[in-house]
């Protein structure tokens, strides 16, 4: 096959749906990243082929090892490089040769560093030299200097830091491998969310943030997009892409790296107040991107959107059996300026009063219900049903310090009975707050498996609910303007 002048870039789909993966720099020695990548790739539910490449080995982790990319028989879709930068440049030539002969290899993941990231002329030259033969053939390059990709649905995994993960519909794109991996590992034990696709962009020599967001936007296995970024190159295109995607899928962003706008003399007031960060803020709001400011808020907003529907309005009920955290939650909710407290109907208020103990507090202050410590597991069912059914409620935050005498199983059973009594299209967002954190890990896992997000902090729950309301209102506003 000859290289034509104009080559179209391959789709990222060819990379995420690879059926064969070569790992160049695979290592037989446990503890080495080149070994861990092979282990993690093997551990996935992947029905394709994995080819370790290492000229000095015959097998690695029980897999036949190849001396060279060109020796691999059959079709090769994805190549992972974890060798020195100079070696990467050389192998890129091999990949190009292979492409010319066989027309395969959709993309490569370059884990290796030593390229443009330091800004050195030498590194940049190597990056360019590696890229050139690949881009000329439309072969996609992820990185260099990145963790790579994972797809829980196709079973592709090139990440030494990521063992197989709970499968669901949250996709993650990040400019920091460490931050993205931290998010995943933080949520893993409590099963706070399930992953779909994962990609860290590294130096973005070829594959850029906006392309990934666009791709996730069209991906049927992605319902929520989580994004960590420090800066983007084509701001305008990024906003256009995000605005389109946000109309059907929430994008939750954490943007760091706050530098001031401009270095030259700024002579207008606008120039003086226009921190780079403020412009990002405006651009994100315009694009419907949920911008979070705290790490916990970022994590939990993604988790909640991964499991819960969007609120249809902004009236939120706070249900608790514990005074203090309930009050903290209300304060935080109202401080957002985005939500209002629920306005429970007289019917619901009366029914709650009849159901609960005489000491219970119903709708004082408005939208707040304190069941008090006398509440039982069984009582939860009727109370939650009543609140969620009420016309004056668009969402519910439930907070509890689970008493030791409660049965986990009984509480979950009654809770889910109430929640699942509504058909899917009638469900409203429900967040639970277990203020004992990981001390009640088992209880939280039961809730999470039932589809109810569990948080630890009342103020974070308020921010998360406000984010869901804000995004829902943004989507409605797009409909109203016919866009």
């Amino acid at each position: 096959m000859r290289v034509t002048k104009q080559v179209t870039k391959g789709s990222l789909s060819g990379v995420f749906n690879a059926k064969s993966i070569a790992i160049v720099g695979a290592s037989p020695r446990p503890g080495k990243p080149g070994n861990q990548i092979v282990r993690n790739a093997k551990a996935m539910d992947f029905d394709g082929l994995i080819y370790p490449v290492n000229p000095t080995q015959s097998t690695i982790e029980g897999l036949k090892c190849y001396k060279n990319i060109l020796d691999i028989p059959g079709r090769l879709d994805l190549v992972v490089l974890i060798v020195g930068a100079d070696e990467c440049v050389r192998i890129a030539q091999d990949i190009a040769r292979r492409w010319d002969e066989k027309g395969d290899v959709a993309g490569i993941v370059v884990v290796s560093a030593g390229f443009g990231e330091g800004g050195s002329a030498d590194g940049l030259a190597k990056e360019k030299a590696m890229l050139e033969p690949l881009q000329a053939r439309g072969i996609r390059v992820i990185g260099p200097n990145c963790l790579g990709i994972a797809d829980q649905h196709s079973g592709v995994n090139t990440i030494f830091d990521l063992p197989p993960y709970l499968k669901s519909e949250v996709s993650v794109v990040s400019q920091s491998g460490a931050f993205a991996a931290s998010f995943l590992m933080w949520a893993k034990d409590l099963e706070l969310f399930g992953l779909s696709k994962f990609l860290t962009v590294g130096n973005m020599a070829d594959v850029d943030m906006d392309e990934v967001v666009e791709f996730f936007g069209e991906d049927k296995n992605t319902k929520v997009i989580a994004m960590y970024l420090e800066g983007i190159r084509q701001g305008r295109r990024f906003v256009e892409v995000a605005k389109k995607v946000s109309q059907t899928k929430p994008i939750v962003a954490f943007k760091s790296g706050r530098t001031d706008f401009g270095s030259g003399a700024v002579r207008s007031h606008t120039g003086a107040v226009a921190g780079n960060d403020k412009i990002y803020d405006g651009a994100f709001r315009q694009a419907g991107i949920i911008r979070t400011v705290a790490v916990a808020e970022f994590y939990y907003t993604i988790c909640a959107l991964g499991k819960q529907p969007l609120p249809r309005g902004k009236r939120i009920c706070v249900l608790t059996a514990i005074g203090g955290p309930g009050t903290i939650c209300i304060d935080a909710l109202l401080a957002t300026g985005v939500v209002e407290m629920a306005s429970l109907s007289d019917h619901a208020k009366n029914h709650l009063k009849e159901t609960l103990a005489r000491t219970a507090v119903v709708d004082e202050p408005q939208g707040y219900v304190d069941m008090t410590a006398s509440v039982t597991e069984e009582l939860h069912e009727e109370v939650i049903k009543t609140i969620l059914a009420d016309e004056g409620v668009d969402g519910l935050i439930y907070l509890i310090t689970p008493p030791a005498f409660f049965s986990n199983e009984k509480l979950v059973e009654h809770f889910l009975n109430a929640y699942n009594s509504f058909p899917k299209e009638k469900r409203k967002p429900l967040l639970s707050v277990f203020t004992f954190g990981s001390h009640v890990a088992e209880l939280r896992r039961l809730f999470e498996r039932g589809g109810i997000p569990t948080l630890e902090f009342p103020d974070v729950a308020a921010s998360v609910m406000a984010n869901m309301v804000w995004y829902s209102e943004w989507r409605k506003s797009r409909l109203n303007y016919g866009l």
Partner: protein
Amino acid sequence: MDYKKLVKDVLKTGRSHLLEPEAYYVCGEFGITCPQFNFVANVEDGIDAARSMGFPVVVKVVSPQVIHKTDAGGVVTGIQSEEQFKNAYSTMLENVRGKVPDAEIYGVLVQKSMPQGVEVAVGGLRDPQFGPVVMFGAGGTLIEVLQDVSFRLARLDRGEALRQIRETKVFKILQGVRRNKPCDIVALADLIIHAGKLLEEMPEISELDFNPVLAYPDYYSIVDARIVLSSELASVSTVNK
């Protein structure tokens, strides 16, 4: 004169901002209405202008070297009579000559005094990543301290401009507090949209400021306009001159 030619001509002279009357003229071409003004070269013409528009009036110095007019003593407000006008005119010019000795004074802008309104600011700039962006916020001299501002990418529709306005604290004041009538927020939204168009269509402009803009129940009034031209273009033109 063609507004595009005006801007190009200014750049050719090496100047990197428009004078206030020039700025008002360019704005007018984009549907941005500015209050009635006269640009005069001497005190007699100034008095004539003030008389025909009716007191009270404001006078402002017009000089390429004076960008921060208030700081240079180049603005006098609330002039009620011809007598006051004469004094104000000469005092102002003296002040400016004292503070900015090398200022070339092209003339004086006479403007009708505007009634009190809610002070807001509308602005825009060309961001290296995002291109033309527009700003809305609480105006006045404290804008940089308060930083009650919100940004959007141009071009934007009215719904988006309204959302931008609602993100600021000054929005609450615009809605009417302490028995004040609510201001014309839609007119402000349109002003933001027009500022965005101006930036989009005039690549020579790098930053613009309308501050303060006085918001009223039935409209708004731009009390000062500053348009900064791309200094790169300006310096290139200077070299070519």
